């Protein structure tokens, strides 16, 4: 069969999700944000909650997330997405509220908001993209930056005595009684992308069932900030990031 004979609507097995808008993303080539955006769009569509989902966009690379996923959005001040999500989920309890944050937003500027929203057990989903760097501002050190990792502000590598240790914020959140589901996933292979999608689906189902706060951390890459090609960045991620941030469920409360 020729390619033209195969490319027919009845043979389609994978299509671009309807909830993704036609806008071309501003993300750098190979950035994990694009994959997670697509997964969020797919999950919201599959659960049929696109009319009652409200996203809260962060400050960081994902600041323009509202341009790409066709649901209702609110833009939060830096780090304050969980606080705004709290207000929305309390004022509109029938809505499904999620925040989409990077590591600079969630683990540095918004530490207090994140921890207290999770501790209160707000019925929200927190999608946390951890790429160990401040991507948007030019690759500065974030709290999640690995020891020895070179960034714009740690040109000789991060030192524990000078810069402190990388923070495993999901492990901290997993200890809180308000969280019902805390998981750490990645998106650098097709299999892991499918697992991340399953985790996101579970998190949104938890929010629909009002079980408490769900946190899906996605260990992601930053090819531009790490000064690598996307392929090399994914190899580096696999080798170094997953060692410090091991993948898998940290907490999964049934009922």
């Amino acid at each position: 069969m020729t390619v033209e004979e195969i490319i027919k609507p009845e043979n389609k097995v994978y299509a671009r999700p309807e909830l993704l808008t036609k806008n071309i993303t501003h993300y750098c080539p190979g950035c994990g944000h694009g994959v997670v955006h697509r997964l969020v769009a797919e999950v919201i569509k599959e659960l049929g909650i696109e009319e009652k989902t409200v996203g809260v966009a962060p400050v960081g690379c994902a600041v323009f997330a509202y341009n790409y996923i066709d649901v209702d959005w609110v833009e939060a001040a830096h780090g304050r997405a969980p606080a705004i999500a709290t207000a929305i989920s309390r004022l509109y309890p029938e809505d499904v509220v999620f925040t989409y944050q990077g590591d600079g937003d969630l683990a540095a500027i918004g530490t207090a908001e994140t921890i207290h929203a999770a501790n209160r057990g707000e019925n929200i989903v927190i999608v946390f993209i951890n790429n160990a760097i401040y991507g948007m501002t030019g690759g500065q050190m974030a709290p999640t930056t690995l020891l020895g990792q070179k960034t714009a502000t740690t040109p000789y590598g991060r030192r524990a005595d000078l810069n402190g240790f990388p923070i495993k914020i999901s492990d901290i959140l997993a200890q809180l009684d308000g969280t019902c589901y805390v998981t750490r996933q990645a998106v650098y292979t097709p299999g892991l992308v499918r697992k991340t999608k399953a985790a996101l689906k579970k998190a949104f189902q938890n929010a629909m069932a009002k079980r408490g706060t769900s946190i899906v951390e996605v260990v992601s890459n930053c090819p531009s900030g790490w000064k690598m090609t996307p392929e090399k960045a994914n190899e580096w991620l696999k080798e170094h990031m997953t060692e410090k941030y091991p993948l898998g469920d940290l907490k999964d409360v049934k009922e």
Partner: protein
Amino acid sequence: MAKVQGAVTIDVDRCKGCDLCVVACPTDTLALQPKDVNDRGYHYAYMAHPEACTGCASCATVCPDGCIEVYRVVIK
């Protein structure tokens, strides 16, 4: 034995030439254009060996820009 044959379409204008689909492809179907670029100057992906494609959708799964759509037929 039934044979599975696949094909992909790539939204050339949306592609940023990140090469991740080429790495993910288990059958070496995809490659980046060696010379041609799209409107924004990226060497976009294309099917270099269309006959090898099985429609497994690995490329579309890892594509950060959602520019790949996958088609598959089972030939009995």
